[in-house]
């Protein structure tokens, strides 16, 4: 009963979303406010309905309705409750429901805002979000239904179907297969919802962009309304990406966090379009420029969001991400193609209205440097897109599939990332309208002195890799310039207001949240860059087979192998765990416990022992080998310098975001 109920509600949600889109569009053309209002109510109702459907599925996951194929495949009796619930996004069919659920939540939230000043946008915002929602619901209903049940014929054949096939009875397995062991990790529990929140969040600014194009109200109103939505989407997408990296680092046991896998790139691409969008809307607000470009960026971001969902959900590209093959490829292509073509058509139609109000004159002005930032991000996006589609293109052109791997991405994007770092240094020092090398040089020379000092110290202490020298120089340059900017602003306030330094800094930040929050985010980015440079350039590794009592030396550390234990854990897995003592310069620093678990179904999981400091990580893998013994235990050890700054950077990032996006007092008043 529950399965039919959940499915029925899902179908109703789909019909309601279609109705909402239709009512909004016809309301717009017939200028009927009642139809528009009805479409808005309908969209809000979809949230209630899909919540009901999703909660039904969660209830079945939690209570073990294994007659439902999806529940059978991702849930099992011995899983703790929180895993049974999060199994909602442990497989493809459930992930799609989560996508629609979040989409509906965002769409509903946006219809709740006060619309008096922007009434003309409403029908198109409703229509765009409702159509997107209806598209994803249709995938669930027609292609990957999570409520499909198992049926058994008299001859014993079991097959999945929504409704009872003739002559068969419901088949109820006594237990499910359970969630993939690799997904039973906090990083994996929060990574998909965060990523999806980021994905669906970008649909809102896109919907407003389309509304602006259709209605012809192409001033910067749509951008001002969606500023906060865009920031929220960007925050979640960024956190989602970092959580995925952290999960890979903690769980996959190969010493890294990012492998330039097509699915990773699919999630990165919307970020690569959304980040320049975030920057260039500032130029539109302040200078009335780049309007066409902003439209193009948000259209691209939306298409990449859909494309990203499609790549993770189809069998087009081979990837470590397991859920893949399915039948939706053509439908996705049609949807992406249609929405892209219509959006670009609208953009061309309004092209003249979106002309810049002013002209860029100076190549070093703030707006020109923002444009450069946009082009660099766009360049990285093109590199990534090329890398993902290259196998398909090469096969069509030459008949032989060619692929590119991590070395391609590192080589092609490296110089662009470096240029972005340099830009993060220069841009805050440039002025709106007009800057020259001279004016920037005057502002930059002070923070450049300590930067140069860092470079010299590095060189003297034998850092001779030019990429490292350049990278670390740029990182310290951005840090010094950013701190200098804070200091300069605070000094000015001190002089005028007579405040003490700390009051001055905090008031300064609060008065210009977006600017100084942005600077904090820049510091977060260089912190992450530091970690990435460290692990990419200086990772060392060794693999040795030891007997208890023997030692491994790596990068100044000594690891002594103390003991080995093998024991069963309560949930049935067999744990093999080694204990190693870490020494540096003869001093005991602590213990590491690398282990591998073998589950009853034969799945094994290697969990590295990691010791993190600000300077470096020691990352020890106990090699999964069936003949492991105290006399012969194979280990693989990585030394990952500076990688911790990658995770520290993501924490600073959230802080900077909060500073930038916290509602201003005046804004709260004016919204009311």
């Amino acid at each position, binding site marked *: 009963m529950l399965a039919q109920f959940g499915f029925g509600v899902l179908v109703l949600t789909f019909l309601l979303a279609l109705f909402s889109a239709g009512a909004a569009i016809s309301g717009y053309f017939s200028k009927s406010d009642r139809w528009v209002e009805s479409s808005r109510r309908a969209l809000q109702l979809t949230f209630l309905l899909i919540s009901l459907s999703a909660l039904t599925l969660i209830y079945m996951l939690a209570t073990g309705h294994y007659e439902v194929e999806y529940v059978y495949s991702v849930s099992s009796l011995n899983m703790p409750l929180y895993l049974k619930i999060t199994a909602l996004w442990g497989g493809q069919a459930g992930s799609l429901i989560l996508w629609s659920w979040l989409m509906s939540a965002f769409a509903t939230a946006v219809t709740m805002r006060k619309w008096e000043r922007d009434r003309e946008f409403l029908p198109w915002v409703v229509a765009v979000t409702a159509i997107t929602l209806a598209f994803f619901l249709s995938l669930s209903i027609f292609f990957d239904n999570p409520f499909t049940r198992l049926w058994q014929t008299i001859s014993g054949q079991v097959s999945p179907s929504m409704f009872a096939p003739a002559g068969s009875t419901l088949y109820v397995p006594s237990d499910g297969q359970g969630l993939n062991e690799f997904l039973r990790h906090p990083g994996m529990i929060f990574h998909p919802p965060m990523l999806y929140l980021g994905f669906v969040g970008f649909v809102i600014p896109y919907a407003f962009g389309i509304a602006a194009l259709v209605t012809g109200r192409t001033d910067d109103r749509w951008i001002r309304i969606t500023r906060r939505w865009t920031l929220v989407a960007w925050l979640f997408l960024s956190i989602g990406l970092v959580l995925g990296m952290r999960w890979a680092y903690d769980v996959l046991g190969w010493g890294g966090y990012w492998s330039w896998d097509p699915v990773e790139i699919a999630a990165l691409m919307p970020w690569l379009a959304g980040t320049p969008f975030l920057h260039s809307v500032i130029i539109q607000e302040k200078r009335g420029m780049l309007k066409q470009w902003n439209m193009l960026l948000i259209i691209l971001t939306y298409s990449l969001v859909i494309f990203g969902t499609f790549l993770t959900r189809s069998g087009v590209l081979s990837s470590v991400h397991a859920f893949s093959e399915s039948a939706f490829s053509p439908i996705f292509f049609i949807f992406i193609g249609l929405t892209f073509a219509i959006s670009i058509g609208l953009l061309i139609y309004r092209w003249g209205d979106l002309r810049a109000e002013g*002209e860029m*004159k100076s190549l070093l002005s703030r707006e020109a440097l923002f444009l450069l930032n946009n082009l660099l991000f766009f*360049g990285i996006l093109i590199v990534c897109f090329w890398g993902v589609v290259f196998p398909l293109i090469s096969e069509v052109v030459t008949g032989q599939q*060619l692929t*590119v791997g991590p070395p391609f991405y590192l080589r092609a994007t490296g110089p*662009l990332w470096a240029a972005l770092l340099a830009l993060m240094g220069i841009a805050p020092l440039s002025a709106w309208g007009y800057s020259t090398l001279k004016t920037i040089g005057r502002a930059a020379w002070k923070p450049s002195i300590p930067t140069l000092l860092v470079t010299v110290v590095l060189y003297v202490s034998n850092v001779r890799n030019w990429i490292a020298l350049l990278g670390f120089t740029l990182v310290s340059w951005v840090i010094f310039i950013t701190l200098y900017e804070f200091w300069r602003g605070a000094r000015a306030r001190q002089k005028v207001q007579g405040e003490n330094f700390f009051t001055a800094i905090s008031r300064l930040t609060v008065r210009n949240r977006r600017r100084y929050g942005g600077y904090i985010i820049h510091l977060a980015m260089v912190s992450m860059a530091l970690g990435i440079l460290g692990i990419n350039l200086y990772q060392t590794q060794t693999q040795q087979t030891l007997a208890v009592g023997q030692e491994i030396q790596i990068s100044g550390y000594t690891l002594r192998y103390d003991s080995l234990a093998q024991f069963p854990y309560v949930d049935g897995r067999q744990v093999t765990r080694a204990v190693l003592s870490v020494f540096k310069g003869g001093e005991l620093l602590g213990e590491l416990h690398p282990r591998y678990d073998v589950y009853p179904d034969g799945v094994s999981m290697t969990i590295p022992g990691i010791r993190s400091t600000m300077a470096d990580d020691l990352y020890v893998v106990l090699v999964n080998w069936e003949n492991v013994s105290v006399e012969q235990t194979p280990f693989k050890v990585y030394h990952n310098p500076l990688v911790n700054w990658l995770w520290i950077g993501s924490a600073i990032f959230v802080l900077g975001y909060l500073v930038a996006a916290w509602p201003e007092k005046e804004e709260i008043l004016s919204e009311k």
Partner: protein
Amino acid sequence: MQPSPNTGKRGRTKFIVGGFLILAAVVYLIFSSTQANAQYFMTIDELHAKSASLVGRSLRISGAVVGSSIQFNPNSQNLTFDIANVPGDNATIAAQGGLAKVLHVAVTDPTDRRLSVIYNGPKPDLMRDEAQAIITGHLDTDGVFHADELLLKCPTKYQEAVPSQVSGN
């Protein structure tokens, strides 16, 4: 901020030239990096057909892991295993009953062409019988594939979720 026609034109040229330089740089980066790093992605059958001409080149091969062949040498920490040929084309795989089925058939069919692989490093968790392996490396003159990178997929956990034949009830 009133642009005189003269400066406006000069300003625009400046930006157009700048834009082209960046575009050219990106295009150069993409093409040179592709040229330096492109690898053939092939099946074992395709590899066999032109193996002589491919010795030493950077290749990416897809196949099914033959569980019984997996061996780990604790002294050298070398992992050796065989992979069996699976078709490279998604449509063919779908026509033959899905990836899990194709992998199963490849491993159990003794006539299916196989490739010996050697990899220096620990056995990945996903490395087991009938997993799909995508390996990057080069072919040696002795016909053994030296892998630098292993990617593994286990479709069974997700896709073959349903037991096709249940006995006893």
